[in-house]
């Protein structure tokens, strides 16, 4: 056959001058009499015949692959469900109530499947019925029979196996007959609908992505009014307490991933606050969720409580809590209606609870110390002098000392964090590949990397890297007595406050606004945070908090401006008339 194909090549052999050519496996000509191989290959000479042979080759290759990679038949949404399941389990281990998994997240997910017409509806997408599949791995944990494609739909979210909702709409899943399943439909993905899923673009439907799993988690946390803020959730993800990157690794062995699944499930970026926040609102709207349970004063997410938490976190005096409460009250950001998330409301938006609380603290710090690189230091001098002379009394809060302690701690933490980021290993143990051709290469590459890593791991510093941190909502730990970690919680604000009649006011009567003007339209750039325009103390504080929440500094600055806008409403309307007046007196 090869000789047949080589007939068109009529040149003489450079070695033996014979004209008798055969084709090598690579499509090159070789002389059948002297076995000299030419550089000329078949493609160049005869393009007409090539496409066919190529297609044949691909077909052959794929058939082989299908045999190799035949796992369970599974749908993309099941993959996401598995990730959600893992995340919910992880949250449960973190101490979140079991209802979150069994009821809230489960219901949200079901609602999602229904809204996106993937299940629990009359005409599911692709006609093929997609239902919640049994999760083999999770069940084996509870010593139940692992059963693929069980006869009754049993959502894996519910451990007990009781059906939480009459699944009247949900049809029973049937084993997909391999014959009816055309080979081409799943040619390039391990999941049944991977190819089609990645192509699917339906207006009005929010497509599931891995980052959106976190939005689902946060929505359920918010619904349950759990003591986890979004920034904390993302930090837990970052610290590896909640499965996210390479979550597909923990899929059951038989759920094969490749081809298009890679684009769907492989993640190579950390989730960002803003992104997940947006996605959360988007999903809540898509799911058409009712108003969430009220955030009242005794909720963790209420600014008063969060402020307290962050004051403790950044080692500021407890006494400041009175001031933060006052600011919260004056600005009205503690109102139930303001705080409660209502997706159906006209302008669905939710409060960034953690960012807002931190912004309130920044405003209070500005009220107390002005943060103009001047007043805070002179107040520190006074406090230092007082503390030296009155060693017995409750010490006055010394901003400079606090700065020293915080600067050191935050720098260390930041360094640690940067190091961890630089060393983070992104790639999963299961390599993902695009097609069968890639498969061997991907596995070989993985093997190579593992091998090299093994070799170098013996050369790494002998001091073991700090083991996995225990999950905690606090990142710092302040202790009385330790000079480097001095605790300022008990320090008093005397010297900064003064009595005025019955109430206390700040000695400092000046204030400067972080933002002079706001756009009147709803355009997003309320403020642009140009660092160099601000005092160094302010920069330090903004950086400190932004790092704690792992958000961009400009994002926090914007929130500070919004709080100030509420606090100085009247002044803002005045400044609109008298255009530039940054410093202004203010009574408290």
């Amino acid at each position, binding site marked *: 056959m090869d000789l047949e194909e080589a007939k068109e090549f009529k040149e003489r052999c450079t070695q033996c001058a014979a004209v008798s050519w055969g084709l090598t496996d690579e499509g090159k000509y070789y002389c059948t009499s002297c076995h000299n191989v030419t*550089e000329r290959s078949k493609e160049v000479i005869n393009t007409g015949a090539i496409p066919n042979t190529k297609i044949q080759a691909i077909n052959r290759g794929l058939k082989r692959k299908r045999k190799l990679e035949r796992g369970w038949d599974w749908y993309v949404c099941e993959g996401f469900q598995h990730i959600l399941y893992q995340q919910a389990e992880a949250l449960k281990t973190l101490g979140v109530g079991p209802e979150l998994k069994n009821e809230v997240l489960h219901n949200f997910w079901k609602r999602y499947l229904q809204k996106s017409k993937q299940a629990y509806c009359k005409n599911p997408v692709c006609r093929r019925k997609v239902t919640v599949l049994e999760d083999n791995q999770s069940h084996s944990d509870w010593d139940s029979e692992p059963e693929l494609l069980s006869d009754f739909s049993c959502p894996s979210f519910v451990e007990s196996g009781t059906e939480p909702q009459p699944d009247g709409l949900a049809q029973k899943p049937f084993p997909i007959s391999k014959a009816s399943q055309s080979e081409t439909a799943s040619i390039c993905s391990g999941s049944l609908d991977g190819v089609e899923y990645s192509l699917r673009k339906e207006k009005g439907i929010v497509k599931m992505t891995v980052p959106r799993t976190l939005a689902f988690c946060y929505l359920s946390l918010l619904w349950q009014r759990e003591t986890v803020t979004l920034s904390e959730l993302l930090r837990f993800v970052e610290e590896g307490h909640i499965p996210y990157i390479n979550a597909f690794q923990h899929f059951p062995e038989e759920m094969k991933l490749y081809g298009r699944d890679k684009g769907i499930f492989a993640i*190579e*970026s*950390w989730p960002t606050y803003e992104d997940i926040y947006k996605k959360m609102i988007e999903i809540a709207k898509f799911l058409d969720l009712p108003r969430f349970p009220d955030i009242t004063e005794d909720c963790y997410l209420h600014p008063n409580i969060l402020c307290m938490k962050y004051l403790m976190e950044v080692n500021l005096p407890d006494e400041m809590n009175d001031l933060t409460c006052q600011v919260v009250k004056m600005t009205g950001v503690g109102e139930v209606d303001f705080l409660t998330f209502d997706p159906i409301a006209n302008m669905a938006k939710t409060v960034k609870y953690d960012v807002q609380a931190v912004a309130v603290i920044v405003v209070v710090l500005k009220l107390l110390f002005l943060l103009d*690189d*001047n007043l805070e*230091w002179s107040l*520190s*001098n006074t406090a230092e002098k007082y503390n030296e002379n009155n060693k017995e009394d409750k010490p006055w809060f010394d901003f*400079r000392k606090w*700065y*020293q302690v915080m*600067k050191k701690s935050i720098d260390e933490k930041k360094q640690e964090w*940067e*190091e961890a*980021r*630089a*060393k*983070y*290993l*992104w*790639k999963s143990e299961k*390599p993902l590949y695009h097609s069968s051709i890639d498969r061997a290469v*991907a596995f070989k*590459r*993985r093997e*190579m*990397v593992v*091998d*090299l*890593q093994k*070799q*170098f*791991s*013996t*050369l*790494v*510093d*002998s001091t073991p890297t700090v083991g996995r941190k225990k999950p905690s909502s606090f990142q710092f730990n302040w202790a009385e007595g330790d000079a480097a970690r001095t605790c300022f919680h008990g320090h008093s604000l005397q010297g900064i406050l003064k009595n005025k009649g019955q109430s206390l006011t700040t000695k400092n009567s000046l204030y400067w606004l972080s933002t002079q003007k706001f756009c009147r339209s709803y355009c997003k750039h309320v403020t642009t945070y140009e660092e160099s325009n601000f005092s*160094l*103390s302010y*920069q*330090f504080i903004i950086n400190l908090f932004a790092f704690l929440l792992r958000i961009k500094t400009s994002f926090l600055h914007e929130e500070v401006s919004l709080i100030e806008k509420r606090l100085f409403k009247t002044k803002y309307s005045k400044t609109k008339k008298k255009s530039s007046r940054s410093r202004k007196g203010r009574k408290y």
Partner: protein
Amino acid sequence: MSDFSEELIRSKTEDDQEESCVLSGTGMYFPWLQKHIDTVETGGKKEKDFAQTTSACLNRIQEALLKHQWPQAAGYMHSYFQILEDSDSHKRQAAPEIIWKLGSEILFYHPKSNMETFNTFADRMKNMGVMNYLKISLQHALYLLHHGMLEDANRNLSRAETWRYGEKSSSQEVLINLIQAYKGLLQYYTWSKKKMELSNLDEDDYAYNTASQTMLNHSWKTSVNLGALIQTPGVWDPFVKSYVEMLEFYGDQDGAREVLTNYAYDEKFPSNPNAHVYLYNFLKREKAPREKLISVLKILYQIVPSHKLMLEFHRLLKKSEKKDHHKLGLEVLFGVLDFAGCTKNITAWKYLAKYLRQTLMGNHLAWVQEEWNSRKTWWPSFHFSSFWAKSDWKEDIALACEKALVAGILLGKGCRYFRYICKQDHQVLRKKIRRIRKSVKKHSIVNPGL
């Protein structure tokens, strides 16, 4: 304001710098790595955190290497390997070379590393991507050489030599040549050891014959190996030298001359002073005519006017019969002394003093003036300042005397250097100084009428 607020300011500016560094891509500048980083395009898409991790990791490895923190570097390297799985094919393809360079550096210095780890690493890296095999093989061999493992190095080079990969191998011809040449160099080494042994043996000895036979054998292989490389344009000093030595040993003078002439004169080769030095030395050994030697050194003079052979060149020119060679002889001396590294070369000064007198006596004032005109603005302060007078006198009286004579001739007896030396009352040298005074009076180009 207090110290601490200043600290805040200070630390801030430091942070700023750090930030700008981060923005520019790396904290440090490694041209060869930077190129790799810069050529990799993100394709307009938002850079993934994976890419951030790997680039941060790379920076940290470089920093650790710079600070000789080998274990830290190894720690980051451990994570950097994942770039081999980067979905960006540009980065993935550039990675093996970077990994090899950094990794071999770490393994070279790391206290816990040994030959075995290095060899395993090298063997692994060689087979990663087609294009790296030869380069890494060669560097691996050099590493082995460094550790005195000649045989292993040789084995490595032999393996690399026979490596072929379809069309790719033709593009790496130079590398193959280089590998062969290194192999040749190793053979040369054995050969020259054998030669040493041979010189200790008696010619009638039975062993002599076998030894010379093996030597011959080696030389033949070596010339094959070296021959190909030195045909390709480049700087191949050690190879050329050993090749020529062997050719000469076996009496192939014509072959040696051809190689050296080609190496020195072929325009495709980069300009290389050593090529001319080798040729000159060879011709000198051959007792070539003076004219020929001068023509070789003339080119060397154009490339490196301060070369130590220039004094020899001067002697040759002086001996020549041609007038323009005499003139060039003066030029060469002035040229040598233009260089800061030669200011204390007593021979050069001695030659100049002598030759100046000779030239002036030969009524070639114009030659001297021609040379002097371009130098009179800066030589006085460069050579003849009172500082130099003092320090030369202190360090090397003979040098000071020669310089004083030159200074006197060129600048007249009023010049500071000359006056200072003459003022020194030295018993032994009194006579000499008197002689200097006399010849200055006679030859000084300043106010020649007096």
